[in-house]
């Protein structure tokens, strides 16, 4: 198996369940130290792709490299996984469940206990460590699940909807934690429907629909590729009348100006300068990720 230095390298994988093709010719790679976004509508094949990376399923075709090679027991010890639907033993105490999960990742008990105490303190769960998981709120269970994902200090973290059930304070805390971990060199694959979180945290993404890759690459580049024929303008004085404009809408204290087919952004800038408008901001309007998502998924 030829594997590069990427944290994850997915090459032309296919997976079918009976007559249903869940994943078709999906390829992408994730680098160490990056937060990589995995996007797609419901039923697009995201979870299947994650399970193929995690060796829960095996691909019918293609190959998956994880941390420099085919997944094995040693590499599994360096992966942290937070599934969308939470899975912890409900009738056991929080402490016992988390220590068991760490033990399955090969962490010695003394080390696991020490790290657990730190994480419980960080997530303000220390007082609940003897409580049964089922007695905790959804938000607390989500934090517990995040601890289970991180306790063994993984080099690759795969998180599916990591912010669900978290309040804004805890969401911010988890975001900061993920950014810190990526700065330490940890590769993170984040699957979520929250486009703002992707835009905020991820530099690269892959968008899957009907089991196939629709978009893949640098987020900024994808937005540039999907830019419309529009500019974003902010002036201190009222906006003058401009020719070649099909619509003009207010957008965050600026104006989003749609141009007709023959007008270029340069022509609009010239008109603004000639009219004496005091221009504070002038940029090519890039679509939000959500717009791109809706546009490509609907096609």
């Amino acid at each position: 198996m030829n594997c590069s230095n990427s944290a994850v390298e997915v090459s032309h994988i296919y997976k079918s369940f009976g007559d249903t093709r869940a994943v078709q010719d999906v390829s992408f790679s994730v680098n160490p130290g990056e937060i990589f976004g995995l996007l797609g509508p419901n039923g697009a094949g995201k979870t299947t792709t994650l399970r193929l990376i995690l060796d829960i399923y095996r691909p019918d075709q293609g190959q998956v490299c994880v941390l420099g090679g085919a997944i094995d027991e040693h590499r599994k010890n360096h992966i942290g996984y937070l599934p969308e639907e939470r899975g912890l033993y409900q009738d056991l105490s929080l402490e016992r469940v988390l220590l068991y999960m760490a033990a399955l990742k090969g962490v010695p008990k003394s080390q696991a206990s020490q790290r657990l105490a730190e994480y419980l303190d960080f997530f303000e769960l220390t007082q609940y460590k003897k409580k049964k998981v089922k007695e905790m709120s959804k938000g607390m269970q989500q934090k517990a699940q995040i601890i289970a994902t991180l306790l063994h200090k993984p080099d690759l973290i795969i998180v599916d909807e990591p912010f669900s059930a978290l309040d804004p304070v805890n969401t911010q805390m988890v975001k900061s934690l993920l950014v810190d971990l990526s700065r330490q060199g940890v590769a993170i694959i984040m699957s979520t429907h929250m486009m703002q979180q992707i835009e905020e945290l991820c530099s690269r993404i892959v968008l899957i629909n009907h089991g196939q890759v629709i978009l893949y690459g640098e987020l900024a580049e994808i937005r540039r590729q999907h830019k419309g024929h529009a500019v974003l303008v902010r002036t201190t004085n009222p906006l003058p009348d401009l020719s070649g404009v099909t619509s003009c809408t207010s957008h965050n204290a600026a104006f989003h100006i749609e141009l007709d087919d023959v007008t270029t952004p340069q022509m609009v800038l010239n008109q603004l300068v000639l009219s004496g408008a005091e221009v504070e901001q002038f940029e090519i309007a890039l679509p939000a990720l959500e717009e791109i998502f809706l546009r490509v998924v609907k096609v």
Partner: protein
Amino acid sequence: MAKFLQITFHEYSRHVFRRRFIFALISLPAFMLFAGLISGLAVRSELSSLPVGYIDYSGLLQVPLPEPFVQYVNESDAEKALISRSIQGYYILESDFLQTSHARLVAAKPLGGATQSQFIGQVRQRLLQNLPAEVAQRLASGNQLYVRSADGVRQFGPNDWPGLFLPIGLFFVFMLAIFSTSGYLMQAVTEEKENRTMEIVLTSVTPSQLMGGKIIGSLAIGMTQLIVWVGVILAAVWVGIRIFGFSGSFRISPGLVGLSLATLLLSFVIIAAMMAAVGAVVTEATEGQQITGPFSLPFILPFLFITQILTNPNGSLAVWLSLIPFTAPVTLALRASLVPLPTWQVALSLTILACSAIFSLWLAGRLFRLGLLQYGKHLSLQQMLGRLWLLKGR
């Protein structure tokens, strides 16, 4: 290997230290103790603690018998004592007793078996008192017929009847332990699959490690249950013999114990693997229980043919039932307690059981992987079998 042991220990400790398990563990011995106590009290209420009188016209009992026997000179005194309820009854040894050996008993209701045996023993002792001690002892012990197999390995005597029933009783206890433990296993697999705990665990271990650890953990749970239950039964038997003086011997050959253990342990693996497989493919624990209900039927099938097996332990029906994995444990144990079994039959039966256990584990692994693909979806038997053979890898 370490992870496999982690899972085994986790499964074991998770169930064994639960209130539900501890309750199930003590409920059987508690029920047996309660039932024993009730029947003991019932018997005791029937037994009288009053002395028993006797009138000896034969001159055999010149030296008075010890308590609870009281000597009367004539029948009218004894009758008065009986009417006034000072005694529960009285024996009369007529003057020609030494010739006829006939004695009469006068009582309002039958005396307890133990009291009668005690009186007969005392009379027998007096009859033999002038003979040499060895001869007297031999005569007192009476005839004892032992049937021995030609190789001398098997023996069946008048007091060996418990040896036949004890394996059957232990088998039922074993089956109870196996099915209750496997039930836990199936429920745990279904729940963990549905609440996605399994998905997380599988990012750390292989499906084989997970299933193997769970099955061996269940085996350990079943063994714990069994050791406690069998320990209580043996303790009850010991108490019965030592304290209450029940007669009967419990000679069971070590070979029979070894054979029963081997067949039952292999059966356990088969049942546990099947239960785990069912747990992996069903969507709810209750659905699994409906499917696994009939699993126990083949194991009790030999009891339907128990007469044929006991009357003809080497007949073709008994031999065939010894070779079929599900019926082998009981049939072999029943036959082995009666006749020596041909070595080839034991070897073949154990080989078939071992192969079936390995096949069950393999099948459980396949079905487990198949079940993983079917979150929340029902799977028909046709789909299951169809995909089972087509399933590549996972």
